[in-house]
C-alpha cells in the first residue's frame, strides 16, 4: 500500500538458527546495546494436550519445574537467577508452555545450565510433598485469579461455550479442583517423558552474547539430553469457519456491572487472513479512537469500557473477542442490543480505509515498542519457531500488517462477523437480579 514508508521498513533483528542432534531447535539474536541477555524456552505442550480428568495438569506441571532437578534444589532455580540479578517466570497456554529468564550477560551460562538440568533430569527431584504443596499453591491461584475475581471465569467459560466437547481447547486451562486433587507423581513422570524433550522444544537467546560461545554452551548443556519418543497426536482440531448458529450463555456472578463478551471463530494465528482479523479487531476495539469505543463509550454512553482482541490460537480456529462492560444504568437487554446493532452495522457496511490505517499504525508502533525488550524478542522468536518452524517471521510482522487492505478486512468481516458466527457470554450481577422483572429481562434478552 505504500502508506507507511521510512525507517521502520528496513528494521530487522538479526537471527541465526541451528538444531542439536537431539532435535532441540535453537534461535539466536544478538544485540549489544545493554549487558543483558534473555533465555527463553517454549515446550510445544499446553492444556490442549491434557488427558481427560486431568484438566489443569500442564499448568501444575509448570509449577513443578521450579521445584528443583537433579543438581538444583527446591526453589533454587529462582534463587540462583535472582542472586545473579535476573528476572524469571513461566506461563502456560492452550498450545504451549514457556520458561524464561533475563540475566546480566555474564550469567548466560547459568541460565542455560538451569534450563538444561530441568529439561534433562527433572524426575530425581520430584517428591510427593512438593507435589502436594504446589497443588495447594495452584488451587490458591485458581481461587485468586478465577473464583474470587470478577469475570475471572471468562476464559474457561468461553472455552466451554465455543468449542465442541472433546475438542482439545474445550476444557479449563487452570483446571478443576477435583482434577488437581487427582494428579499424581506418576502423571508427572509420564508428562515429563512425553513432552519435556529437546525435540519438542525451542530455545531462544536474545541480547548481549557471542554466538560462538552461546553455541558452545548450548551444545555442552543440552547436547547430552536424549530426544523423546514422540508425543501422541492431538485429536482432530479443525472446525468449520463459523459456529453455524447463535451461541449464548448468561452467567449470574459476583460482579458489579454487566459485561458482554462476544466471540467469533476467526482464521488461525499466522495465516494470511489472520492479519485481516487482527486489524478488524483493532478497528473495533483498540484504544479510544476505535469504532466501538467511540460509539458505545463516548457517543451513546452505555458502556464503561470496550476492547477487542484475538486469542492467537495457531491450530483449529482462532477466536476474535469483543468485550464491552456496561455502565451501571445500562440494562442487560440494552447492552446486548446496542452491541448487536454495532456488529450488524459493521457486518453490513464494513470498515473504511481511514479506520484500517489507524489500526495498522497503532499495531506497528506496538510491535516496534515490544522489540525493545530482550525477553520479548526471545519469546516471539520461540513462538514463531514453535508454531511455524520459522523464527524469521518476527521480522515479517510489520509487513504482513501493512499488506492488509480495506477490502481484505471487509471480506473477513463478511465471512466471520455474521449472525451465524457469534457466541455471547454475558455476565450479570447476581445481586441485581433478585427482583423478578430483572430476571425476566435477562432471560428474554437473547
Amino acid at each position, binding site marked *: 500500500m505504500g502508506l507507511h514508508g521510512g525507517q521502520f521498513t528496513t528494521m530487522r533483528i538479526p537471527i541465526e538458527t541451528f538444531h542439536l542432534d537431539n532435535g532441540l531447535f535453537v534461535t539466536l539474536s544478538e544485540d549489544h546495546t545493554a549487558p543483558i541477555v534473555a533465555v527463553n524456552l517454549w515446550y510445544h505442550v499446553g492444556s490442549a494436550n491434557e488427558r481427560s480428568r486431568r484438566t489443569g495438569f500442564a499448568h501444575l506441571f509448570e509449577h513443578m519445574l521450579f521445584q528443583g532437578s537433579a543438581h538444583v534444589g527446591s526453589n533454587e532455580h529462582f534463587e540462583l537467577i535472582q542472586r545473579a540479578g535476573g528476572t524469571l517466570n513461566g506461563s502456560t497456554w492452550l498450545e504451549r508452555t514457556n520458561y524464561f529468564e533475563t540475566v546480566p550477560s555474564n550469567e548466560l*551460562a547459568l541460565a542455560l545450565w538451569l534450563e538444561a538440568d530441568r529439561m534433562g533430569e527433572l524426575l530425581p527431584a520430584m517428591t510427593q510433598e512438593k507435589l502436594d504443596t504446589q497443588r*495447594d499453591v495452584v488451587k490458591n491461584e485458581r481461587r485468586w485469579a478465577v473464583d474470587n475475581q470478577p469475570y475471572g471465569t471468562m476464559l474457561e467459560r468461553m472455552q466451554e461455550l465455543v468449542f465442541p466437547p472433546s475438542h482439545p481447547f474445550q476444557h479449563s486451562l487452570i483446571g478443576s479442583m477435583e482434577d488437581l486433587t487427582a494428579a499424581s507423581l506418576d502423571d508427572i513422570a509420564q508428562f515429563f517423558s512425553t513432552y519435556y524433550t529437546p525435540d519438542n522444544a525451542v530455545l531462544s537467546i536474545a541480547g548481549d552474547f557471542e554466538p560462538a560461545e552461546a553455541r558452545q554452551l548450548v551444545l555442552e548443556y543440552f547436547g547430552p539430553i536424549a530426544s523423546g519418543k514422540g508425543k501422541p497426536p492431538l485429536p482432530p482440531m479443525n472446525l468449520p469457519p463459523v459456529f453455524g448458529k447463535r451461541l449464548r450463555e448468561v452467567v449470574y456472578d459476583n460482579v458489579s456491572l454487566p459485561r458482554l463478551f462476544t466471540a467469533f471463530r476467526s482464521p488461525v494465528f499466522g495465516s494470511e487472513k489472520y492479519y485481516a482479523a487482527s486489524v478488524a479487531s483493532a478497528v473495533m476495539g483498540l484504544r*479510544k479512537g476505535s469504532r466501538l469505543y467511540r460509539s458505545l463509550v463516548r457517543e451513546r*454512553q452505555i458502556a464503561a469500557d470496550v476492547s477487542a482482541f484475538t486469542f492467537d490460537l495457531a491450530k483449529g480456529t482462532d477466536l476474535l473477542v469483543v468485550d464491552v462492560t456496561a455502565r451501571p444504568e445500562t440494562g442487560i437487554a440494552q447492552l446486548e442490543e446496542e452491541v448487536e446493532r454495532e456488529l450488524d452495522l459493521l457486518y453490513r457496511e464494513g470498515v473504511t480505509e481511514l479506520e484500517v490505517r489507524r489500526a495498522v499504525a497503532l499495531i506497528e508502533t506496538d510491535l516496534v515498542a515490544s522489540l525493545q525488550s530482550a525477553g520479548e524478542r526471545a519469546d516471539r522468536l520461540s513462538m514463531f519457531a514453535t508454531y511455524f518452524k520459522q523464527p524469521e517471521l518476527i521480522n515479517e510482522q510489520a509487513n504482513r500488517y501493512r499488506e492488509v487492505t480495506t477490502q481484505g478486512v471487509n471480506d473477513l468481516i463478511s465471512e466471520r462477523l455474521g449472525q451465524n458466527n457469534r457466541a455471547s457470554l454475558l455476565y450479570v450481577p447476581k445481586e441485581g437480579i433478585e427482583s423478578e422483572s430483572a430476571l425476566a429481562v435477562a432471560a428474554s434478552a437473547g
Partner: protein
Amino acid sequence: MVTSLRPKSGPTRRYHFPEFHDETLPSGIRLVTAPVKKLPLATVLVIIDAGSVNEPRGKEGIAALTAAGLLEGTSRLDGAELAEKFEQLGTSLESGADWDSAFVKITTMSDKLEEATQLLGEVISSPVFPEREIERLKAERLAEILQLESEPRGLADEKFSEFLYSPESRYSRPDEGSTESVSSLSRENVNQFYQSNYRSGATTVIIAGDVTPERARTMVTDAFQKWPTGSAQKPQLTTAARTNSRRVHIVHKSEAPQSELRVGHVGLPRKHPDFFPTMVMNAVLGGLFGSRINLNLREVHGYTYGASSSYDWRRGAGPFVVSTAVESEVTAPALTEIFLEIDRIRNEKISEEELSLARDYLEGVFPIRYETTAAIASALATLVIHDLPAEYYDTYRKNVHNVSTEAVLKSATSHLHPAELQTVVVGDAKMIRGSLADAKFGDLLVHNE
C-alpha cells in the same frame, strides 16, 4: 547426563544509566532529554505538580478528572478528533494523576515525534473541558468505584488506606475520589484546578529515545508556547496514622473463597535517609520471590499463590504493607506467620546469605529495568518528582552494595512497628470471625455485614 558442574559467572560488563540533559527553557518548563538510539522510537512524558495531594478537601478526584479531561478536546479539536489524530500517527495519548503529580504520555515512532509533540502541547495548553465529556468521565469513575465493591484486591487496598491514615490525611481517601466527592465535581472545579496547578514552573517534559537534546528543545519550545508561567502552591499534607494500636478489620464479602489480606502501617517518605537499607530490608522480608514471607506462606505452607511486602514511596510517608490472598480457612494461621516474620527481622540480624541475595539481585537487575524508552522516561520522572540528585542512577548500585546486615537490622527496628500494625481482611466474616477473635491480633471490627 547434564553436567553437575555449576557454571561460574563471566566477567561483568559495565552499564550506565542513559546520559541525560537537564535544562530549564525560557518559558520556565524543565526539559530532560535522554537520547537512546536503539530503535526509531521515543517516549514523551510530561509531569505536572498536580497530583491528588494538591486537591482541596471535599474535591477528591479532581486531579484525575482534570488529567483525563485534557484528552476531551481543545479549542480546535474535540475529543474524538484528538484520539483520531494521535492514533493515525500510530500513538495514543495516556493521562492520569497519582499522589504527587499528573502525567500525560505518548510513545511514538521517531519520524512522527514532531507532529505528535505539537499535538500533545495543544492538549495540555488549550483544553476546553466540555461539560458533556466531564460528566461522562465522572460517570465512568463512578462505575469504576462500583466495580471495586466486587473486586477483593482493589477493595482491600482501598480499605487499608482508609483504616491506616487519619481521616485528615489525603492518603486516607481513594486517590481518584469516592462516590461522594466525585459526584460533587463540576466542570468549573476542573477548570479552576487546571488554572491554578498547570503552570510552567510545575511542569517537566521528559523525552527518552531516538532524539537529540537540540531537537527536543526545538520541539518542546514550539509545542508549549501558550503555557502560563508561575508555580503552583505547595500542598499541605499530613500523614498521621489513624491509630497507634493494633486493629483487625474484617470487610465482609459473603461466600468469598479466599481472604484478601493487607497488614502494615504508615511507612517512610521517599527522601528518607534510610531509603537504601529499608529497600534491602524489605527485599529480604517480602520483596523477592525468595523472601521470607513468600517462602513461608507459599512454599512452606502452600497457603497462597503469592505473598509480598512493599513500601509505596511517595513524597509523604506512604504505606508499608504486606499483601496476600489465602484460603479462608487458614486466615488466622497466615496472619500469625506474617506477624512472626515482621518480629523476626526486627529481633536478629539477617544472614550474610540473605543480604547478598537481596543486594545482588537489586544491583544485577538494574540494567534490565531500563530496556524501554517508557521505563527510562519513568525513571527520570522519579528523579524529578522526588528531587533526587542527577547522579542518583550512577550511584544507585554502590548505595545498594554498601548496605550491611547491621544497617538492615537498624532499619527494621527503627521502621517496622509491630505494635502499630493494621490488618484488613476482605473475606467471609462468618467463616473467619471466630478464629480471628481467638487469635487476639488486635481489636476486631467487622464492616459491611
